């Protein structure tokens, strides 16, 4: 809400400059969002917490400032509704409230012979400063009272409504055209003010257009009422209509303020619109139950605050806040004024004490007295994250909403948002890849040559719920350098990264197999299996929209980690130097390298490391043939191998390879 400094000083003497007042308000928990200092005034924009409806008014703020600065309020709204008004049979009106739950009290006054004209500057200027547009003296006066004492009022044109006011639930399907000119359909969860024919206002939210005050109005009905906060809130939400009035009602307006607000408005209407009260003021509940007591304990509150606040200090604070102590000091009860509906339990009173002594005066302590029974989670996830940068990847983070077309491609059942922020991104991500693809493209477009990013996060499906995933994407080219030519990133760059990740995670038992995931290009992708369970896929992404080649990988993190051997086995270091032998073979072009590598491994009796050091295709090799060159490192843990032992292994290898259709390259 907005409020100006000068209006506040009409209520309480303020010895503080606007900036210092703002600081004091901050320290009371009334956050000053903005302070706008003008020539001879200052405007405060305040963020009032939802528990303090009393502070959404000049009166409430002045009360708080007075309490903090030990001042008395200069102004008191204590107008009486004049008793000696003219009795005039002409102005009949009856008020019925169907339910006290919905409307605890309704005060209606008829004011006659009003003169509609612009408001005097004292009213219009203050309204403008507080962010309300000045319309005419009648509407402005209801708003002025709202701002000053915090209670919403409404004015009907007496001649446009029937002579009966009924506060009731709307019938399902009933409609009303609001002051803003919009037709609203109502349900039986909305409270309406109706005459004998139809609704004339949506209770606590907005008036109807037809029954509203206009240039031609001569007689008005002034409403001062208390409506059920929950229902007002519900209606305001459902109709997407948040008004100054609904804002205050849904936060529990002060039911003790109704009569004063009425009387004050009647006084102002006489003063500035020449209006005369006629007929009898109707009040459906002249003495509502507003009495509330809260049990209190000095000792418990001190324990909660962690500070020894003296009894006299507490009493002094209570006194300033109009909180009256009843009963003896061992079991006191605190009587809560009607404008402080937020105080319901002792802890609320503890907060009041804390606020007024100042949190700065509670000395910070640290130390625990009990052991903690809960164990630590989530260490593994961070361990995985930490490996990725060393493989050249930057960590990305994305908002987990994606287009539903992705789920269709994946044939997954997505979880749909009821109120998406972006209408095209209406599902929770079923894969981390789409957002990473977008990020890759943005980076390539902005001139990056090689982009490698990864993300760890959850995906969501109806079938499997929430799953923690790791995904990475890689695209572009290795840029040219003085020591190497540029070359595009390809499948083997990614495969090397995947294998290194598996190694770093200490995952030894795994298999690669064909990839059936529709996000990937089958001919350039593999799936990873651990214990026959598919962990995920990696390879070239198949999205036609990618336009550029993007390589991606996505693994289920928990399943991946399930393959990690926790204990590191140390196998000794070989003291005897290995013997290196290169071996070139010629095979059919379509045959996979791995078959031959495995054959070599099987054939060798001794320990062996096998590296593929060359692939060669040329007419000299033969049509549809290729040549592979392997480098074998043969070794034995306990001795240096003899020439004979090496030759024996090599012979076995050649025999085995020729069975697979390979022959030695000349």
């Amino acid at each position, binding site marked *: 809400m907005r409020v100006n400094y000068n209006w506040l000083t009409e209520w309480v003497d303020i010895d503080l400059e606007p900036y210092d007042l703002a600081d004091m308000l901050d320290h009371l928990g009334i956050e000053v969002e903005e302070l706008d200092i003008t020539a001879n005034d200052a405007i405060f924009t305040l963020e009032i*917490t939802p528990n*303090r409806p009393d502070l959404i008014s000049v009166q409430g703020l002045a009360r708080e400032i007075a309490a903090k600065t030990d001042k008395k309020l200069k102004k008191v709204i204590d107008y009486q509704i004049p008793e000696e008004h003219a009795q005039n049979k002409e102005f009949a009106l009856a008020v019925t409230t169907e339910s006290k739950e919905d409307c605890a009290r309704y005060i209606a006054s008829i004011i006659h012979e009003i003169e509609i004209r612009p408001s005097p500057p004292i009213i219009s200027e203050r309204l403008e400063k507080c962010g309300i547009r000045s319309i005419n003296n009648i509407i402005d006066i209801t708003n002025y009272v709202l701002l000053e004492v915090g209670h919403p009022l409404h004015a009907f044109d007496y001649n446009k409504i029937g002579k009966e006011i009924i506060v009731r639930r709307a019938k399902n399907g009933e409609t009303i055209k609001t002051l803003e000119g919009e037709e609203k359909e109502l349900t039986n969860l909305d409270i309406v003010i109706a005459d004998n024919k139809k609704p004339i206002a949506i209770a606590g939210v907005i008036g109807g257009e037809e029954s509203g005050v206009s240039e031609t109005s001569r007689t008005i009905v002034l409403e001062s009422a208390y409506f059920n906060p929950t229902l007002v809130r519900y209606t305001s939400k459902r109709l997407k209509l948040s008004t100054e009035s609904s804002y205050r009602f849904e936060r529990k307006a002060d039911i003790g303020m109704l009569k004063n607000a009425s009387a004050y408005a009647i006084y102002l209407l006489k003063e500035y619109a020449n209006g005369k009260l006629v007929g009898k003021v109707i009040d459906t509940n002249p003495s509502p139950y507003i009495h509330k007591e809260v049990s209190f304990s000095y000792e418990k509150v001190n324990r909660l605050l962690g500070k020894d606040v003296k009894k006299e200090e507490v009493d002094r604070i209570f006194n300033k806040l109009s909180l009256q102590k009843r009963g003896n000091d061992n079991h006191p009860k605190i009587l809560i004024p009607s404008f402080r509906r937020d105080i319901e339990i002792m802890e609320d009173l503890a907060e009041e004490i804390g606020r007024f002594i100042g949190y700065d005066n509670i000395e910070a302590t640290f130390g625990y007295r009990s052991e903690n029974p809960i164990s630590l989670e989530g260490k593994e996830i961070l361990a995985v994250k930490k490996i990725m940068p060393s493989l050249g990847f930057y960590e990305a983070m994305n908002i987990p909403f994606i287009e539903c077309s992705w789920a269709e491609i994946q044939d997954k059942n997505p979880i749909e948002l009821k109120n998406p922020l972006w209408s095209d991104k209406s599902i929770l991500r079923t894969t981390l890849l789409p957002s990473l693809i977008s990020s890759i493209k943005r980076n390539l477009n902005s001139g990056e040559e090689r982009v490698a990013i990864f993300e760890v996060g959850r995906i969501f499906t109806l079938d499997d719920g929430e799953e923690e995933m790791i995904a990475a994407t890689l695209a572009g080219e290795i840029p040219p350098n003085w020591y190497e030519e540029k070359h595009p990133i390809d499948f083997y760059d990614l495969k090397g990264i995947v294998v290194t990740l598996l190694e770093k995670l200490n995952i030894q038992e795994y298999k690669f197999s064909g990839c059936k995931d529709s996000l990937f290009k089958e001919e350039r992708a593999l799936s990873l299996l651990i214990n026959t369970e598919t962990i995920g896929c990696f390879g070239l992404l198949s999205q036609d929209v990618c336009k550029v080649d993007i390589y991606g990988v996505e693994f289920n993190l928990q399943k991946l980690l399930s393959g990690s051997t926790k204990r590191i086995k140390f196998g000794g270091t070989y003291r005897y130097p290995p013997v290196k032998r290169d071996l070139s073979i010629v095979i059919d072009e379509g045959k996979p390298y791995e078959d031959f590598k495995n054959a070599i491994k099987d054939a060798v009796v001794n320990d062996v490391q096998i590296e593929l050091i060359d692939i060669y295709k040329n007419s000299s090799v033969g049509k549809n043939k290729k040549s592979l060159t392997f480098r074998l490192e043969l070794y034995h843990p306990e001795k240096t191998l003899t020439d004979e032992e090496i030759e024996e292994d090599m012979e076995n290898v050649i025999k085995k390879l020729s069975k697979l259709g390979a022959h030695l390259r000349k």
Partner: protein
Amino acid sequence: MKLNELEKNAKKEIEQSVCVDELEKVRIRYLGRKCELTRILHSIGDLPMEERPKFGRVVNKLKNELEGLIEKKKRALEKSKTLPWADLSLPGRRPFIGNLHPLTILYQEIINVFIEMGFSIVFGPEIETEYYNFTALNTPPDHPARDMQDTFYLKDGRLLRTQTSPVQIRTLEKHAPPLRIISPGRCYRVDTFDPLHSPAFMQIEGLWVDRDVSMADLFGTLKIFTRKIFGEETIIEFLPSYFPFTEPSADLWIQCPFCRGIGCTVCKKKGRIETLGCGMVHPNILKNMGYPEFTGFAFGIGLERIAMIKYNINDMRLFYQNDLKFLRQFNESKL
């Protein structure tokens, strides 16, 4: 040649050798099989019997001495052996190394502070029910405080958690207090994606329940946290606030690091910046969980907000745009 003359010449030649090859020639000349010294040694037969042992000792001593000098000179020469010129100003061959996300770096830093203070880390689902996200946290459906957290709902009626506090309820269901937990994770609120808001964000919440935990303990815990994260000299302040799940409630403000408290546009001339919300767990919550005899405190840290203050970042969207030019700047080795 006389022995002393030989000694003088040999030492001079060793000294003057400029490369290993030249030194080797010197060695062969004086100490090789056909060298001067051997020749002199062989001439021992010409001497009278009684002079021979002494002469032998002198020659051998010289031989050893020269060998030592040559060896020493050789080492010195090898050290200064010149290599062909290379342009050392050429750039080095660099491996590709990435970075963790700034939010992960800060996350880990924060988590470690609380682990040191004896907290445990607990995770929970991002998809939640009304009950865990609101009702159990003293925020029934008609509560105006719900406006503070505009919620994403799912078509099946569940919702995306607006805070990680549901984890606190889930933990209290499984474990009786006393306990100290940190529940980190992603949360969601219907907010426009702008410099100060994001529909998804990271939160780190803390809960400490024990007998007679007080606001003084809360302030003490968060004081340690802010000093570790923002520096020992950080000035902090607690101001009253409101949350439906805490009573009393407070906001932690730190002195504006941009103007050192003088007042600037970042802090809207306040000289301090709102950093996180906290308070004493609302007694209704502990009562509903069956622990009315306990008290506790809770706090919620918005990771993006802390990162923006700590790294002086003015646009929250940068955390979610994955621009390498941004991500490259976060080399934190503190992990």
